[in-house]
């Protein structure tokens, strides 16, 4: 089951999961990231504005996607994370490599 929107902007692709980004929702999004990167779409933004809860599976999908994209010379950036997502990123120290950009525009700054 996919529970995310995808918009291709040419230079980058925005994926927007919604609701609980958890052990149910994370694997299909990670699979889609892998497919996109394999197809050469290596600049990805994960728009988290509609995510109200993330668990360790969701974090794992973001980290896995980041590694996959960087291995191909691209990047994965996150935007518009809510309070719970920001709190968990900070707690796990993942905000150092998954910098929570306030907006998609900010995430795109040098692309």
């Amino acid at each position, binding site marked *: 089951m996919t529970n995310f929107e995808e918009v291709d902007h040419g230079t980058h692709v925005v994926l927007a999961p919604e609701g*609980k980004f*958890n052990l149910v929702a994370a694997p299909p999004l990670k699979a889609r990231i892998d497919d996109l990167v394999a197809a050469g779409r290596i600049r990805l933004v994960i728009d988290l504005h509609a995510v109200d809860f993330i*668990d*360790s599976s969701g*974090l794992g999908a973001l*980290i896995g996607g980041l590694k996959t994209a960087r291995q191909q010379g691209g990047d994965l950036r996150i935007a518009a994370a809510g309070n719970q997502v920001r709190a968990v990123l900070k707690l*796990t120290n993942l905000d150092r490599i998954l910098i929570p950009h306030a907006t998609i525009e900010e995430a795109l700054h040098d692309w």
Partner: protein
Amino acid sequence: MTGEGTPGEKAYELEGFAVPDQLDAVHALLAQAARDHPALDPMDVMLFETAIIEIANNVVEYGRPEGEVRWKFTIRVREDEIEAELNDTGQEFTPAQGAVMPGEEAEGGRGLAIAEALLDRIEFERLDDTNHWRMVRRLGKTPEA
């Protein structure tokens, strides 16, 4: 056992199968408790929710026989703490204590470390073929995150 609690204390209970679809019911149970206790700091609720879902995930993912494990959640809100009890019928489980937060590159292994960081007490006991978890967060202190 934790006894009957203080007079007037309400317990929020949920029983069912420990399967992915039931995680939403755990979120809903805590949301109901929070609605009934408007004085609860939303930050405490949010961090407690984050912790207990990681423990619930653990039972859903590793409890065997897969799809047949039953669980019972009980949430209690007290003046100074919020508590969740989780009893599950999965196989005997030996939780690692003092979980270390994995490094930035790790794609897994954060669940228990997150729960431990956000809870003041996390107790585990195997009794009568049932795993008993007790998770407590004290209220009104400076949040960790």
